């Protein structure tokens, strides 16, 4: 089921949670709404679910597959909603939790008892909880609870599956497993899904497309690769992954960092001005000597080789910390240690001019 949102705004008191947001989601897509807390991502999700209503605006639309659902209450939208803290019914067994959505259907639509039973078992199998149907939520681990909540949401055959920070309350290992599992599940059942998260790793790993939000607005929409490698705004650049930021300048249409001209960044007609230069740690290289290419000197202050790459922290001559990721082979070949004087070579960079920003 495709989802179409147009001109959605929401204000709580004096706080504007959403500012004129429009978004369309294709049928069968898994989209992540990514942003820091307070960016409006959860509010947007709740508006789609019908748990909150957008501000009155004649232009605002909420459509599920061409059908306007803006005036339907949550109970009639057929959305599956998964909450961060599970929100399981604690007085019901897992089986009854999953069956709930079918039991409350109007008599005419309600499946027969045997059909409910077999559907619940099927769903428990799907979320790998078969055999735990008789347990109560308090007898399950966090990961199991969230899978039970997911089965409960899927039981009503929702047109749209909405997940609000579903793995936020779980510990790192479980979170990673469930993330991969969710992706596989989505590939299996293909229900249009929206996942809200503040964890960029989660968004980039699971989603088909990522919607980066900040201050109630959408900063960028794109595939994980696009938002990571081609960020359109400074915010996206800073929010997704680690980044080194330098204060550079524009001179005669060229971006300059210190005395170094940065390749590939031209601003025709721009004579003079400030520029923000961003480089991700993996976009920098370290050498022990100058080789003629643009570089700047620095001193190694900290080394963390625990991982698939070596994370090197260096300090430039004007006191700025610069993070560099090296492959473990490069790191060993250079035999770096704390205090080593090195030269840093930018491989690629991104430049944002304050007034060029959207």
């Amino acid at each position, binding site marked *: 089921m495709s989802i179409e949102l147009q001109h959605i705004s929401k204000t709580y008191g004096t706080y504007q949670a959403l500012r004129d947001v429009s978004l369309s989601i294709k049928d069968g897509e898994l989209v992540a709404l990514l942003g820091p807390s307070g960016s409006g991502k959860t509010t947007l999700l709740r508006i789609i*679910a*019908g*748990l909150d209503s957008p501000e009155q605006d004649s232009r605002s639309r909420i459509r599920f597959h061409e059908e306007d659902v803006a005036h339907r*209450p*949550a*109970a*009639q*939208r*057929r*959305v*599956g*909603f998964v*909450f961060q*803290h599970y*929100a*399981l*019914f*604690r*007085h*019901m067994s897992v089986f009854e939790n999953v069956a*709930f*959505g079918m*039991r*409350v*259907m109007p008599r005419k639509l309600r499946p027969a008892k045997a059909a409910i039973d077999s559907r619940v078992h099927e769903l428990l199998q799907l979320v790998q909880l078969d055999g735990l149907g008789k*347990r*109560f*939520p*308090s*007898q399950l681990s966090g990961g199991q609870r969230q899978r039970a*909540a997911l089965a*409960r*949401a899927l*039981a*009503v055959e929702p047109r749209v599956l909405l997940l609000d920070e579903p793995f936020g309350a779980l510990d790192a290992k479980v979170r990673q497993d469930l993330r991969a599992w969710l992706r596989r599940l989505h590939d299996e059942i293909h229900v249009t899904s929206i996942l809200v998260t503040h964890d960029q790793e989660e968004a980039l790993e699971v989603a088909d497309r990522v919607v980066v939000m900040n201050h109630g607005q959408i900063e960028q929409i794109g595939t994980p690769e696009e938002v990571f490698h081609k960020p359109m705004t400074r915010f996206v650049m800073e929010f997704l992954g680690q980044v080194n930021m330098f204060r550079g300048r524009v001179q005669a249409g060229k971006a300059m960092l210190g005395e170094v001209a940065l390749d590939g960044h031209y601003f025709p007609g721009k004579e003079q001005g400030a520029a923000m230069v961003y480089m991700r740690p993996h976009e920098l290289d370290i050498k022990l000597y100058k080789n003629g290419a643009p570089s700047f000197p620095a001193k190694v202050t900290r080394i963390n080789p625990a991982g698939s790459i070596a994370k090197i922290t260096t300090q430039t001559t004007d006191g700025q910390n610069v993070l560099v990721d090296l492959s473990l082979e490069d790191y060993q070949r250079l035999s770096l240690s704390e205090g080593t004087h090195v030269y840093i070579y930018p491989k690629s960079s991104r430049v944002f001019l304050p007034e060029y920003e959207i």
Partner: protein
Amino acid sequence: MSTSRTTRTILPGFGLTMGYTVLYLSLVVLIPLGALVLKSGSLGWHGFWAAAWNPRVIASYELTFFTSFVSALINAFFGLIVAWTLVRYTLPGKSFIDAVIDLPFALPTAVSGIALTAVYAQNGWFGRYLEPLGIRVAFTPLGIIVALTFIGLPFVVRTLQPAIEEIDRETEEAAASLGANRWQTFWRVILPTILPALLTGFALSFARALGEYGSVVFISGNMPMKTEITSLLIITKLEQYDYAGATAIATMMLVASFVLLFAINLLQWWNGRKFRGAV
């Protein structure tokens, strides 16, 4: 060291506090109740039975338990509505209403008795209009129920309030997103969640009503076999210097109350067992 054989705990003074608790409970509760039972024993079996199980006393038991039960039911129902309103909505004068709930706790029961009688008597504010409709409140079992409802309300409201506060919004939203209407959400999700608290409130209100004396004696009229509650009967016996007879009736009430509280606790346990579970 006294702790050498037991597991050490961080909190000190287990022996002292435990000993104190047992002593205090014995002095304040168990010994007086024991004395009561012993005193009634001085009648001998036949004497006891004659004093505690004759038609007039049986009528008073029936009346007391019936009116207490009905008033506790009424309180459970309306108390739930009051508690729900106080927790869920912001209304003008909310803290004032909240304070008024406690009035029946604080008022001397005789004061409430006189107030209720004044209002419900044939020429009282309400009684005046109810009388032509054929409804008599004062000096009937109905009046007793009114008085018992009055004094029992705070028990239900005060036990329910924290339970209702604890229901998290998300649980209700989950029910709504699964297609449940308001009624189904209340009936299948909210009520089972607050049922233990509701049962406790009911039990407290019921237990309080069983022992109530002050507020009832004015409005009931105290007609033997009709509107005479057991507490009053005990007082009457005492006034006739029939101490043993009074304690015989009291012992019956004690046993009945104990059985009831036990039954309610059993119900609580059965209900709570389900979702306490192992974590």
